[in-house]
């Protein structure tokens, strides 16, 4: 038997970037089960199309760069799935595909894939879609009306304002906070199943793929803002419950904020980052132009990460020339 010479750690490691991405993918796929059971096969078709577009963008970009195609891990898949889960179910099929293409081709690849993206690609994709197609992004179908949703075609069903929209106009959503838990209310595909999102979040924290402190501090910040300045005239507790469960705050806190590439490096930095993101999300909800301000808030929070890093890490680079001319 010929023996070859290999480098030091010889044991099979369990945590690698692709295994972390696979965990996130499993957690995201879990979120798809509830809508598929309730509304038919359309979510699966949507997710499939978006993943296909992500893969095509990756291949096109590496062909353009004449670099080997299989160098990519499945982080673009995660971006695609996150974008699909933030879209309404009756959105036209090309909407998540356009957002995913923007996320991969503009927010991820030009900055150097995976390790060097300054912004979370999924957040950039959703922000782009919200800005360019606001009507399609916030037209949620009525879940309790039980209309059949076609698998492929664009469905023209009656749209109903989501609790987040009602909150934005300062009224009290007619659905009680407690039965918002079961997720039978108008909202994006993945964010309505509050219990499922919490379960997937717990799964990610236990497997140490995501850092729990970011999500905890984000929810804390948002709850504090909701309690101190409630948007609707009610006791602070119900305002906190409505704010946390409506819109995509919980989903973004668990899946988009905990992306290790765009979060600070130290524990204290992550606490500050989570709290800052929670407060920003609430500010965007109150003063923003659209009902779902989470994606924009995450972009600004990601821009502040280098600041938090140098603030907390203490590698005082501020003094001398950061970028030689």
């Amino acid at each position, binding site marked *: 038997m010929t023996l070859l010479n290999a480098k030091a750690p010889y044991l099979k490691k369990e945590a690698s970037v692709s295994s972390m991405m696979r965990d996130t993918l499993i957690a995201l796929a879990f979120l798809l089960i509830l809508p598929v059971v309730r509304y038919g096969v359309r979510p699966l078709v949507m997710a499939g199309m978006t993943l296909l577009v992500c893969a095509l963008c990756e291949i096109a970009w590496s062909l353009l760069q004449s670099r080997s195609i299989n160098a990519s891990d499945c982080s673009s898949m995660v971006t695609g799935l996150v974008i699909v889960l933030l879209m309404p179910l009756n959105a036209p099929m090309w909407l998540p595909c356009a957002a995913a293409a923007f996320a991969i081709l503009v927010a991820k690849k030009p900055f150097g894939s995976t390790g060097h993206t300054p912004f979370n690609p999924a957040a950039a994709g959703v922000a782009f879609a919200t800005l360019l197609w606001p009507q399609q992004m916030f037209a949620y179908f009525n879940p309790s009306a039980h209309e059949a949703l076609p698998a492929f075609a664009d469905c023209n069903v009656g749209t109903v304002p989501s609790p987040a929209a009602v909150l934005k106009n300062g009224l009290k959503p007619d659905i009680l906070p407690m039965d918002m838990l079961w997720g039978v209310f108008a909202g994006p595909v993945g964010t309505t199943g509050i219990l499922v999102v919490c379960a997937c979040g717990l799964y990610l924290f236990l497997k140490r793929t995501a850092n729990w402190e970011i999500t905890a501090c984000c929810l804390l910040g948002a709850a504090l803002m909701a309690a101190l300045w409630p948007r609707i005239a009610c006791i602070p507790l119900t305002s906190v419950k409505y704010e946390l469960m409506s819109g995509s705050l919980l989903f973004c806190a668990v899946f988009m904020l905990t992306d290790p590439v765009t979060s600070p490096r130290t524990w204290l930095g992550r606490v500050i980052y989570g709290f800052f993101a929670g407060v920003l999300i609430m500010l*965007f909800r109150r*003063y923003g132009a659209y009902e779902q301000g989470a994606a924009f808030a995450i972009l*600004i929070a990601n821009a502040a990460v280098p600041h938090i890093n140098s603030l907390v890490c203490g590698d005082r680079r501020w003094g001398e020339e*950061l*970028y030689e001319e």
Partner: protein
Amino acid sequence: MTTFAQMMITALLAVTTENILFAGGVGFSHVLRAARRPKTLGVYSLFVALFSLFSAVGGSWISAKLAGSVFRPVLFPSAAAFCAALAYILVALLLKFLPFPFYKQYGQVLAPAAINTVVLSMPFAVNRFSLSPASAVGYALGTGIAFYLAAGFFARAMPELKNDAMPKAFRGLPATLLYIGILSMAFAGLVGTKLF
């Protein structure tokens, strides 16, 4: 007390919703120039705040005087620019003859900080948001702070935008422009419509 509170509110607005840097796209060549020299960043934005203060007050005074004339859309900007130029020359004169070597260190920062689109857009912002003189001062200070924050963000992000994992065509300026694009997309979510 209320004028001070008014000033603070407009300053806060200048940084968030009425941020003419990100939502208006004004003066980013100067933000990048300031970000490339982080040592003089603080003084640069201080000068920007100072000169936008001059032009905001001067602008509202000039628009009051030129209210009647028919050539208002043409005369007003050139008058405002002229007064900004005068302000620069005065400040340059003043600094040159100061005892301690202030000018030698920050001299070459003074010129770009005084003559840029942020300063000249002040009178237009004052008209657009119909600010009272006190809140005009607040707005100018707010814009100075917004400039400082934006330049601080870019000074930190610049080393990250030049790594070698990026394709060669995107290194340096193109990545910075995309970075500005995505960040102003976030602010566009806050404002929603055209600022001016």
